[in-house]
Structures are given as C-alpha cells and as structure tokens.
C-alpha cells in the first residue's frame, strides 16, 4: 500500500506526453504549468498518507 501511494505522484510526474498541452488553462496558466505545480502539494499529501499507513518500516 505504501509503495502504491508513493508511486502515484511519480507516475503523474512521468506522464509528460499527456500533460504536454496548453488547454485547459487555470488562472491563465497553461495546463503543462499548472498541472506540474499542482502536483507538488498533491505529492505531499500522498507521501504524508504513505507515512501514516507505512509506519516505521
């Protein structure tokens, strides 16, 4: 479970062929940019939960 949680943000970060587009925009940011930036807090949430379920292993 811990590994799956940690892998999800990584897979998103590697999905460049899919996020390499301009639309849809958010606050004027092309998708490529806002997706990447939004992924950072999302990855923090996943790492946090991974730490909770994974314990001290």
């Amino acid at each position, binding site marked *: 479970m811990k590994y799956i949680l940690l892998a999800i943000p*990584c897979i998103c*970060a590697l999905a460049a062929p899919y996020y390499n587009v301009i639309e849809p925009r958010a606050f004027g940011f092309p998708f490529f940019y806002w997706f990447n930036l939004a992924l950072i807090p999302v990855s923090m949430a996943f790492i946090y939960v991974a730490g909770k379920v994974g314990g001290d292993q």
Partner: protein
Amino acid sequence: MNVVATSVFIFFFLLVTVLGFWASRWKAGDLNSLHQWGLGGRQFGPWVTWFLIGGDLYTAYTVIAVPGLVYALGAYGFFAVPYTVLMYPLAFLLMPRFWNVCAKHGYVTAGDFVLGRYGSKWLELAVAVTGILATMPYIALQLLGMEIVIRGLGFQGEGLMAHVPLTIAFVILALYTYSAGLRAPAVIAFVKDIMVYVFVIAAVIYIPYQLGGFGSMFDGAGKVFEGMVAAGAAASPPKVVNAGLTLTQSQIWPFLTLAVGSTLALFMYPHSLTGVLSANGPKTIRFNMTMLPLYSLILGLIALFGLMGRAAGLDLKNTGDVVPQLFLKFFPDWFVGFSFAAIAIAALVPAAMMSIGAANTFTRNIWRPFVNAQMTDKQESDMAKLISLVVKVGALLIIVGVQTQFALNFQLLGGIIMLQIFPALCFGLFTRKVHGQPLLIGWAVGMLLSVLLIWISRSPAGAIVPMWSSPLGIGLYIGVVTVSANALVSYVLSLVTPNVGTDETMATDYLDAKV
C-alpha cells in the same frame, strides 16, 4: 555601480557573516570531533533540518540556472518540477534506512556505509572519489551564481579585479565554515530561506501584474518562442529551434530521463547525505521528505521568471542573466539589493555544506583507510577543516582561472558520474543479493560508458551535451543509460560469483530503533 542596491546587499551579507561566526556557539558541542564539526552532532530537529536540507538542495545556482533554461528553451527548463516531485517519494524510502544504519555504526559518509556494508576498501574509494569529483564543480557553480548577481549590481572590473568581491565573500565563508562547521550553514539557512520566500512571492505577484496578468505573460512568452522557431526555419540553412510553451516531440524523452536521472543523483551527493545525517532521527527525515516539496513549489515559481523574461522582451546573450535583469527592470533599487543578497546567501549555504561533505568524505574514506588508519577524533576534524578550505580554494580557482564553460561542462559530467554510486547505496540498503566486487565492476562500467557517451555526444564546439541520441531514435539522458548498465552488471555478476566481502550490518540496523 548601483549604490542603493549595493548598500542593501552588503548590509545583508554582513548580517549573515555575523551569524556564521556566532554559529559555533549554537547548540554547543566539541568541535574537535568530526561527528560534531561535520554533522553538527546529529541533533537537528524537524524544522532546523527542513531549513538546512532546503538550503542545501535549492541552491543559488538553481535560482539562476533553472529560469535561465526556461528563458532559453521554455517548457523544457521546467523539468526541475517533475524532477523534484519524483525525488521525495524515493528519498522517503531510502533515507530513513540510511540514517538508521549510519547512526548505529557511526558512519559519517556514503563511503563509510559502503565499507561497512560490503567490506570493500576499493568500492569505498570509488564512492568517495566520485562524490568529491562531482562536488567540486557544483561548488564552483555556486560561485558563478554569486558572481552573476554581483555583476548585476553593476560592479565592473578588469581581469583579476573583476573577481575581488567574490573572493572576499568566499574568504569570509571559508573562515566561518572552518570555525563552526555544519552549524554555520544551519544558522544562515534560516535567513536565506525567509529572504528567498519574500522576494520570490513578491516577484511572482508583481511582475505578471505589470505584464497584464498570468494569461498574457504566458501568451507573450509563447509568441517570442514562436518567433524564435520561425526565425530558425527561415534561416539558411534552416535551423530547428526546440523551444516553446510546451515540449516539442523530440524533447519529451530528454525531459523525462533528465528528471529521473537528476532525481537518482541528488541524494547521492555528499552534501545531501551530510544534511540527512545531521538530523536527529528517522522521524525527522520522514517529516522532511513530506514537507520539503514546499521548496519545489518555490522552485516552480522561480522557473516562471524565465517566461517573464521572454514576455518582458529581455534580449540577453547570456541566459543566466535573466533573473538579475528582470529584477533590475521591474523593481526599485533597494528591493534589487535585497533579492540579490538572497541569491548570494543562497550560494553560501550549499557551498558550505558541499565543502563539508567533500571534506568529511576525503578524511574518512581516502585519508584514513589509505594514509593514516590510526587517526584520533581531533586529527580527523583538523583534517576535515583543512580540506574544506582546500576544496573552496579549488572551486574559486576554477571560476577565476578557467572559462565558465569548463565549470559548466564539469558540472554536467559530475551529475552523470554521481549517479554511478546509486546502485551501491540503493542495493546496499534494500537487498543482500548484490555484493561489493560486482558493484565495483558495475561502477567502472558505468563510469567508462559515461565518458564514452559524453565523448560521442559532445557538440562541435566541445560543450558537453548530456543527451545521447540513442539508436531507438530518441534522446536519452546519458546518466540514466549508464547507471542502468551499471546496476545490471552489478546484479548479474552478483548472481554468478560468490560473495567475498564481509558485512558488518544486520537487517535490524536499518529499521527504526524501538523506543
């Protein structure tokens, strides 16, 4: 020279100088032991560690180079964001185990761990030499970042005179690192981070506002890139320009492999491991691997400065000047001074950590095993202090004495070779199937293959291009190709040869201690 900006700059620089010297009294310990001087006594709690590792990884050079790359090529420079997203899940798995085994056996460096884990002095040497070689140009680039902002202040000079401000700054840095060890960057990192956060957030709100909002900032930058592509196509002979608001088809694989390779390399650098080992326990490290991505958010915003530079119509010969020039164009002098001071101080923290990391490595993994096996604690820390000076002088000479291009080439090479110790560390932390001798052979294969691929991929002008045009028709980051070969050789040879090394670690050493 810009008097107001320079005065503000000098004020903040003096402030951190005082802090740097004061640091030797902070959380006082016996600085005549390497454990204290070189790791700050392994006592830093969650927040001190956060500032320290943050200051260590997100360097002045990053603040200059990432926007510079975005300015030059657009989306491609944004590889820094997926890179830092990939980094923390991996470090979350590796680094608590690394801290546990190091604390248990008193290891100070990656080389110490490798010696204990595999019992191979030669693998230890390979790891140590790789780390030091990769660190030297990295320190030089911090100086380069500092020099770029000093140039932005309008300081002019001829020949050696041009390097006087940088030399003064570096002598000060060298002295307080010598006296306070790792405590100096830990204290300065606080000031640096607050300053960086202030100037980045102010700039990311104010400059796009001046350019008509984020939408028109992106559109403006996009138009400039389209113009560059069109101009390239119209030139004779036609030139393919790979730049734009999104990646071109041929950039996708280089973008991804560069992100992955950078991720695997980052925590192999001696200064990163020094930062991790100075924490007070595995819980602090897990907390940090969860919270450090906040810096990546700032890094992502810093990357946007490159696009702002394009949208604002800056036409620069040296893409590294984009941040200083952008600030000079949009901000009053006092704020320019503040921002430039933040960048210069952002060079001091990693430069101090890098020289400490390299010094620890040299002392523990080259001097002690090969020259004087009977060193006392005092001799160890004296040697490390001395080497931290030598390393810094070396970096200064690279910047003053040779061309910038050499430092940049050396740094690209450094990133690729740094990756070659990843198999030894990662296999060592997670499996007992892989042994010391095969890892040493794998390392040698990785190093030779790296040099070979760099040689055949170099540009006609002799610059290092870290991408290899593979037979598959896609460009791949050389480091990823060579570390894969390295890991494969190490693994396969371990399956077919007997283990001749001794392992002093036990499975429980890697787990958190039961309280």
